[in-house]
């Protein structure tokens, strides 16, 4: 149980897919211009990651090593298409604003990376915890980046105006360069946080 919890925790700070492993970055820069988009993308990615890891972990003994990548892609693509269809049917507004980025989950390296590095070698239970941890790590970073960008670039968070009426939105933060800047600051924050946590862990020991 303890090791499962540790697996889960890894993805949030220590091995955060975006801030530490630095994979799946294009979606983090492209859809984080509003909180609703960031959250939707994070949840959709987590869903696909969870089910892909479960299925691949179940079948890991029957997947031949030499054709594992095509099989992974078939499974990931199937779940991504399902998410796309379900979102179109039940959340049409979200689906419209996410546009092309949902189909692009197929080639999101986080999923490919975790499936290859973790699910294809571990049992179902650790794979579930790994996918939830990684998914949560991805989602919180997406929401945090988009909150900063939406607040400064549009004066609102999740569509609720927070800035005084006199506030002139800084368009820079909505545009791609602003995304890079905010993202870079988050990376440095995460490295600082990790350093601090290492220090306290050492002191405690």
């Amino acid at each position, binding site marked *: 149980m303890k090791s499962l919890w540790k697996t889960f925790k890894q993805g949030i700070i220590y091995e955060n897919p975006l801030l530490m492993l630095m994979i799946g970055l294009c979606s983090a820069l492209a859809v984080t*211009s509003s909180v609703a988009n960031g959250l939707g993308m994070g949840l959709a990615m987590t869903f696909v990651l969870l089910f892909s890891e479960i299925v691949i972990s179940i079948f890991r003994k029957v997947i031949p090593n030499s054709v594992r990548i095509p099989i992974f892609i078939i499974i990931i693509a199937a779940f991504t298409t399902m998410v796309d269809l379900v979102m179109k049917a039940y959340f049409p507004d979200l689906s419209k604003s996410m546009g092309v980025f949902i189909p692009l989950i197929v080639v999101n390296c986080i999923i490919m990376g975790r499936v290859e590095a973790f699910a294809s070698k571990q049992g179902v239970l650790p794979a579930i915890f790994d996918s939830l941890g990684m998914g949560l790590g991805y989602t919180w970073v997406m929401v945090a980046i988009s909150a900063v960008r939406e607040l400064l670039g549009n004066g609102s968070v999740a569509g609720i105006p927070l800035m005084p009426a006199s506030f002139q939105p800084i368009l820079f933060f909505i545009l791609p360069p602003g995304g890079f800047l905010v993202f870079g600051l988050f990376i440095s924050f995460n490295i600082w946080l990790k350093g601090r946590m290492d220090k306290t862990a050492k002191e405690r020991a």
Partner: protein
Amino acid sequence: MKGTLKLGITLALFAVGACASLAVVYTVTKPQIEAQDQLALEASLRDLFPEGEEFEDISASISSANDAVRISSAFLAKRGGAPLGLAVKAAGPSYGGQAVLLVGVELNRSIAGVRILELNDTAGLGANAKNPGYYVDKANKVTFPGQFAGKFITDPFVVKSDVVAITASTITSTSLTTIVKAAAEAGALWLENSALAPPADQNSAASYSGSAASESAPEATGGN
């Protein structure tokens, strides 16, 4: 050889499994997706013509004179059998890809209103076109699509002259204006060919003769 065959069969089995599960999800969600599209379209149609009771699909008999703008469907709004106007759904290129607009054309060939159904332009810039709180005319609270209401198709439709642009989004403003103009022209031509809107303006619905809906497609725009 045998090993390769085994690999191929394994791969095929996974593909079959994935296809089967996808087929199930597709079948379950398909009616819902169609219902959502229909719902969204009907809501915008009613929004454009609040008086409208029924909307007749005339998509087959309308076409666009502008090659870049594609008309996907069009509806004739009616109340008690008398036509009120035409709603034209048109798609054309904009800054962030395809933009889809619904343009309402009155019988007197003025624009009843413009609704943006799909637009993927930059948030905070071009996307302000579909932001109900973004006004191009702050004093009168007129939005970018809102400024087209009441314009006649004979107007020039030139951005920065008779159309107010969105700040720092000239491409979005120009593209959307082009789509509105093309859709309105196609709609007006259809009305003319259907004898619903005689060349002279200021016609009321009372002059409607009743035989128009069966008229054939406008010839002038077809072919090339």
